């Protein structure tokens, strides 16, 4: 049985994701989630089973906003180049973190991954989506692509105060 995934994020960073989505509306925003896996969260069942992805929770410690390179269709598409990915990874390393996922917005669409999102996704990463309706940020959700690429698995979001998040 698959173990539930959890993404921990401070209320401050969650609000920042919402603000970034609102700020680029009606275009999609995008950027990297910088953080770390929560080592204490390796599930016992996963360890015993030797599951491929045995860490069930991770914490977002920062954001790395990026330019949406899809200037041909920014209202319903985003793109982060390999060079941008390397920049994000460098920024994460400097802070002793790693890139644990990506965020983007869905202008006037629900915060659910599309078929296009799935077709272009990587496993392991957390994909945070913020829905923005008429410039107002609404739901924030997070997802992980499953091993056979057939679907995204929802990832629970645990919002903590800044003090609890350890920042």
């Amino acid at each position, binding site marked *: 049985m698959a173990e539930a995934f959890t993404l921990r994020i401070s209320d401050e960073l969650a609000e920042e994701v919402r603000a970034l989505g609102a700020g680029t509306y009606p275009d*999609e925003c*995008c950027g990297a989630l910088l953080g770390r896996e929560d080592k204490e969260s390796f599930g016992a069942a996963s360890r015993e089973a030797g599951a*491929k*992805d045995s860490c069930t929770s991770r914490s977002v410690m920062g954001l790395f906003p990026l330019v949406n390179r*899809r200037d041909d*269709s920014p209202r*319903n*598409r*985003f*793109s*982060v*180049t*390999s060079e*941008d*990915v*390397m920049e994000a990874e460098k920024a994460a390393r400097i802070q002793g973190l*790693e*890139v644990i996922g*990506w965020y*983007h917005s*869905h*202008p*006037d*669409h629900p915060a659910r*991954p*599309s*078929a*296009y*999102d799935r077709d*272009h*996704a*990587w*496993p*392991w*990463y957390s*994909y945070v989506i913020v829905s923005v309706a008429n410039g107002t940020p609404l739901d924030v959700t997070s997802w992980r692509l499953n*091993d*056979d*690429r057939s679907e995204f698995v929802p990832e629970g979001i645990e919002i903590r105060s800044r003090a609890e998040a350890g920042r």
Partner: protein
Amino acid sequence: MPVRVTIPTPLRSYAGKLDSAEFSAATVGEALSQLTTRFPDLRKHLFNDEGKLRSFVNVYVNDEDIRYLANQSTPTKEGDLISIIPSIAGGCSR
């Protein structure tokens, strides 16, 4: 020719948690083929159903994108570093 292939973070769980692996290969294609033979679960994330590299999978030989060289036919020499670097894409509608 022994070459090293780096494995990006999102794929390491399918490669025994390795961040790189070494193969004897004369081309990028040979190296990737050996990579996915050793770690079969990588294949679906690197290649589409037609056996082509997925658009968001970027492969470099040292610092050069193979798209500007000879793609998977790019020859390799001893000591070359083949890097698999993600790009990220998505969007709200089909």
